[in-house]
């Protein structure tokens, strides 16, 4: 059982320790599966802490996202609202965005869903899987930064939550991915770099979450 503090969030199986409310985490790596595995552990809401989650999923359906959350933490799927770019919506907590490049609509949907989640519980986790897909779909990177500034980062300073933005560094984002990561790294409060080191193992290089460190996790 996880001891839940009111001011911190836990990520099971990652040995990251308590994560302070308000933390924005940039999650990067070049292995999509390893990245997703770590992402779900960071974003899965804790029922004991009465948490909710809002996930933007660019590659997976809402149903798949909820199943992945449930596998990570039992019952967490039902506590998550998903804005998905594939699959079908359920008229409730799973909504579908038709065009990932329509960042205007995407931003509105996300703002709306986060506000609804906060109406159900003060504690929340938000996640974007994958931000690199949003970068690739956008015509102008300034719009992606505007999206992050207006819908992702503000909720973390205004409310009681953490946010995780996953970026696949192997994706073609139409710009220098290393430079984008370096830039985002200074803007986010923490960086977790995922490197797959075995079939079911990865190394996390962690900064901004207490002492900088490298840790090995099973996938």
């Amino acid at each position, binding site marked *: 059982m996880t001891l839940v503090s009111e001011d911190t969030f836990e990520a099971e199986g990652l040995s990251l320790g308590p994560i302070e409310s308000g933390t924005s985490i940039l999650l990067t790596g070049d292995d999509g599966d390893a990245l997703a595995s770590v992402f779900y552990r960071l974003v899965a809401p804790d029922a004991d802490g009465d948490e909710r989650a809002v996930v933007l999923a660019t590659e997976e359906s809402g149903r798949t996202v909820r199943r992945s959350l449930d596998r990570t933490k039992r019952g967490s799927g039902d506590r998550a609202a998903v804005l998905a770019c594939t699959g079908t919506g359920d008229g409730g907590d799973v909504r579908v965005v038709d065009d990932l490049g329509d960042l205007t609509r995407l931003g509105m949907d996300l703002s709306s869903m986060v506000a609804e989640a906060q109406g159900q519980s003060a504690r929340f986790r938000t996640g974007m899987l994958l931000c690199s897909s949003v970068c690739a779909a956008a015509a102008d990177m*300034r719009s992606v930064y505007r999206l992050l500034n*207006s819908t992702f980062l503000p909720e973390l300073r205004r409310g009681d939550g953490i946010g995780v933005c996953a970026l696949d560094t192997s994706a073609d984002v139409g710009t220098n991915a290393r430079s984008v990561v370096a830039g985002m790294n200074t803007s986010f409060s923490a960086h977790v770099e995922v490197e797959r080191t075995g079939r079911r193992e990865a190394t996390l290089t962690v900064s901004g979450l207490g002492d900088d460190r490298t840790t090995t996790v099973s996938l």
Partner: protein
Amino acid sequence: MSRNVLCVDRSERIGGVVDAVEAEDGLTAVRAPSVEAARERLESESIVCVVTAYDLPDGTGMDVVGAIRETASQTPCVLFTDVAPSDIDTASFEEVIVEYLNRDLPDAADRLGFVANDVIDHSAQVGFLAPDDEGERLEALAAYDVAELPIEESFDRLTDLIASHFDAGVAFIGLIERDEENVLSCHGAEMGSITREDTICTHSMLEEDVMVVENIHEDKRFSGNDLLVNLGIVSYAGANMTTDDGHVIGQVCLIDFEERRYSEAERHELQQFAETAMEILDLRQAVRAERPLEVAR
């Protein structure tokens, strides 16, 4: 100082929006009951934030947002509406980001004032990422009384030297302020202040090392930037001017009108020039700080 918030809504509903905005200390509501009226206010008033409904007599709130993005791209906008996102026509505004606030929420009015203040305080819809230490960085920058320092001639000589050394079309020194880059000296072009999200330097300052863009047309961060493209800029290299406390306050940059690479040695040299610019700034500031003491003696 009061901050003007443009409130756009139908005449019969605008009162509630104005009341919610003015319930916050320091915010003054400027009324506009239509898209056309909003356009007029944007031209005649200094507006720091826009709060608009979606359904308006002569258009939609997205028309208002589109209007302000044309003239003041960094001004934050809040779409305060009971229309669901799925019913909002975004076809002509695919990358016009606003903050959506549902007017049907029980605490919508309270939220509106809070959100308006927050988006103003944090420049919340700018098209660039600010460093985590932005507040301290701006304080560090403000400590340099640049307008009063006799640095112009020194920096002009330095940018002449830098352009000559690298055989570059343009060399400039700029300080990166909250909303814009203030170019202090420039060899090879006329540059004053540039909106921050339109500059390459706001990206370069986030990197520890010299940032090089060999061809901006091949980089999505800049290829859609009309200002850069219209100036004919193709390549860029920028090095950080960093205070003793580690805050990046400015950049020393090279621009060329053709694709260009920079060797490791050249990048190192550009960084040295940036450190020299920082030393000049520090020395001038130190001399200025000493002067009142000398007079007192």
